[in-house]
């Protein structure tokens, strides 16, 4: 039985076509994966189906849910479908929970008002659901008191409590470590086994591999390739699909190892933490010039705190960090997880780079040469941080660091917000710069896969 059918869907921004034409149908128990990099228009499909496209955008085409055409319904009638016919699991679902409401209440609310159960029935349904999802201890707790994985299951319970046959999931695994990723995929499998149809948007090839169904590869709003997952993923036809799959860390070639130079930084048995809480204890590391070290472990284990300690922003609670004498005051630089937050919000990027260059008496030509070497166009300098793509901005922050000849580069998940192709390019670039300029790099990542491919020297904080 066809649960959802989309015929020749377009999305326009005034006269610009952002997406389309795209047509697909999903059977009951079926899966459709829409894959593509950021800006390909993946989320637009979900918004067009829900009817939540932001103001200047409008959709054209026909959308059928259970044989009924829904795209020409009035807005109020479409909102009636939400939760009952179409459920949506938002990106980073823990942000979608009410932080002031006990977990079970948020789920019971859906049973009560979306599924129209009596309040006692809603309560008992919620209890059953929590038990099934392994959340029995979470019921009275507020979302802030739950672990990330638990909060996500609560959000999932709330989204699916209305028993909608269609589940739309927008980047359901974004920012999750591999353990939690597997749990989300398990939930999806369960949804399918009871006859739900799943439409998921992702840029992660490993997610597509784990879910078996149809796949559409999207680039700049155009369908590049489509078919069964096993065909497309094993035997891609389009060049774009090939590069997308090659960007999956599992498929990366191993980066070459390099010879180490002199010692730059020694950490001896340090304990680090925030306030009086110790996160990492008895940690030792010797950093040589040109060396690449990866620190990995699940979120919240103290990776970033460790990095801040190396940067000198916080002091170790115990132990000491020794810097080599030739290390100057500003020889340790940092790359950030979210590149826009590492630049001033209200002034142009050029102004920021000029400030740095003037301060350290670096000729402006040299800054431009670095930009050129990182294939960044000079036009970017007139823009502000929020007007530049994440990948370009991360390269720009590498260029900014290079301006002042750093010896140590501390990279805090520098690519976790970038799409896979950009992620691979950026990490390759960092590795290349590290060997040519003999800069020591400490990479913090939650992906052991990336760490393994990027360096031999891995510190796993989980063990």
């Amino acid at each position, binding site marked *: 039985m066809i649960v959802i059918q989309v015929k020749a869907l377009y999305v326009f921004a005034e006269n610009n076509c952002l997406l389309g034409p795209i047509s697909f149908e999903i059977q009951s128990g079926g899966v459709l994966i829409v894959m593509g990099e950021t800006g390909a228009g993946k989320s637009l499909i979900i918004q067009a189906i829900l009817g939540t496209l932001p103001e200047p955008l409008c959709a054209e085409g026909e959308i059928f849910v259970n044989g009924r055409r829904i795209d020409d319904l009035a807005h109020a009638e479409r909102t009636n479908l939400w939760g009952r016919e179409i459920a949506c699991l938002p990106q980073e679902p823990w942000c979608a929970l009410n932080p002031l409401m006990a977990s079970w209440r948020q789920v019971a609310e859906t049973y009560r008002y979306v599924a129209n159960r009596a309040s006692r029935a809603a309560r008992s349904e919620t209890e059953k659901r929590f038990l099934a999802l392994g959340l029995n201890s979470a019921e009275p707790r507020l979302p802030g008191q739950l672990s990330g994985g638990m909060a996500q299951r609560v959000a999932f319970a709330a989204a699916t409590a209305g028993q909608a046959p269609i589940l739309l999931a927008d980047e359901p695994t974004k920012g999750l470590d591999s353990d939690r990723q597997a749990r989300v995929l398990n939930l999806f499998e369960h949804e399918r086994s009871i006859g739900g149809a799943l439409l998921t948007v992702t840029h992660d090839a490993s997610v597509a591999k784990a879910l078996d169904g149809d796949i559409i590869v999207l680039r700049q709003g155009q369908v590049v390739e489509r078919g069964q997952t096993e065909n497309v993923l094993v035997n891609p036809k389009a060049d774009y699909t090939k590069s997308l799959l090659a960007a999956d860390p599992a498929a990366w070639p191993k980066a070459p190892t390099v010879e180490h130079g002199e010692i730059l930084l020694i950490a001896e048995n340090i304990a680090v933490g925030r306030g009086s809480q110790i996160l990492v204890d008895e940690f030792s590391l010797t950093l040589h010039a040109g060396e690449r070290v990866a620190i990995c472990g699940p979120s919240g284990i103290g990776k970033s705190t460790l990095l*801040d300690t190396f940067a000198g922003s916080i002091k170790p609670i115990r132990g000491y960090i020794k810097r080599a004498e030739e290390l100057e005051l500003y020889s340790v630089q940092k790359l950030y997880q*979210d590149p826009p937050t*590492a*630049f001033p919000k209200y002034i142009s990027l050029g102004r920021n780079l000029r*400030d*740095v260059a003037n*301060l350290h008496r670096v000729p402006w030509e040299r800054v431009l040469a670095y930009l050129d070497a990182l294939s960044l166009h000079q036009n970017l300098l007139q823009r502000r941080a929020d007007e530049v793509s994440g990948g370009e901005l991360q390269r720009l922050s590498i260029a900014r660091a290079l301006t002042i000849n750093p010896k140590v580069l501390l990279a805090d998940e520098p690519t976790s917000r970038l799409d896979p192709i950009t992620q691979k390019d950026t990490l390759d670039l960092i590795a290349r710069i590290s060997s040519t300029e003999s800069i020591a790099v400490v990479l913090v990542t939650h992906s052991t896969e990336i760490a393994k491919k990027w360096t031999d020297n891995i510190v796993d904080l989980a063990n």
Partner: protein
Amino acid sequence: MAARLLSGAQLSLSLAVLSILTAGIPGTLLGILAAWFGGLTDRILTSFADAVLALPGLLLVLMLAAISPGSWWALYAGISLTLWVEYFRYTRQRARITLSEPAIEASRLLGLPWHLIVLRHLAPEIGPGLLTVAAFGAATAVTAVAALGFVSVGVRPPTAEWGVMMTELLPYWREAPFLILQPIICLVVTVLSLHLSVGGLRKP
């Protein structure tokens, strides 16, 4: 009458503008100082601001006026002393958020000096909001001057001041209500336009 009204406007508005300067500049600077250094500096400054806030503004002015009855400077000092807290609280709050962003750590690692951090990061962040605080502060100052004049603690007659004029015209309100209405309308229009100007400032 018109001349007296205009003269009153001159007095109220110049007091308001002056108090924006003398309350706004130290309030903003202290706010940045508290957010920047945190710790003990922050605690001392915040408790001081809370202490001032705990005292009703008019009471503080009344106390100062009691020391030097009818003088212009006591009125002015009292208004400034109560208004700086608003600037301080606003600036400290916003600056604390901005200063905890990665961009600031990046700037420090790059060696950018403090004045560039204030100029490039803090000023554009808190500037527009400060204008709003200033407009509300001016409105508060205008009301305070009139209120004090009305209860005969602020400016003394024969100086033309809206509050003082209201007191003077109060006995005649039955015979000639439009007389007392004039300073009232002036006051309402001034305060209202200051408040509405905030809406205009908020627009990009």
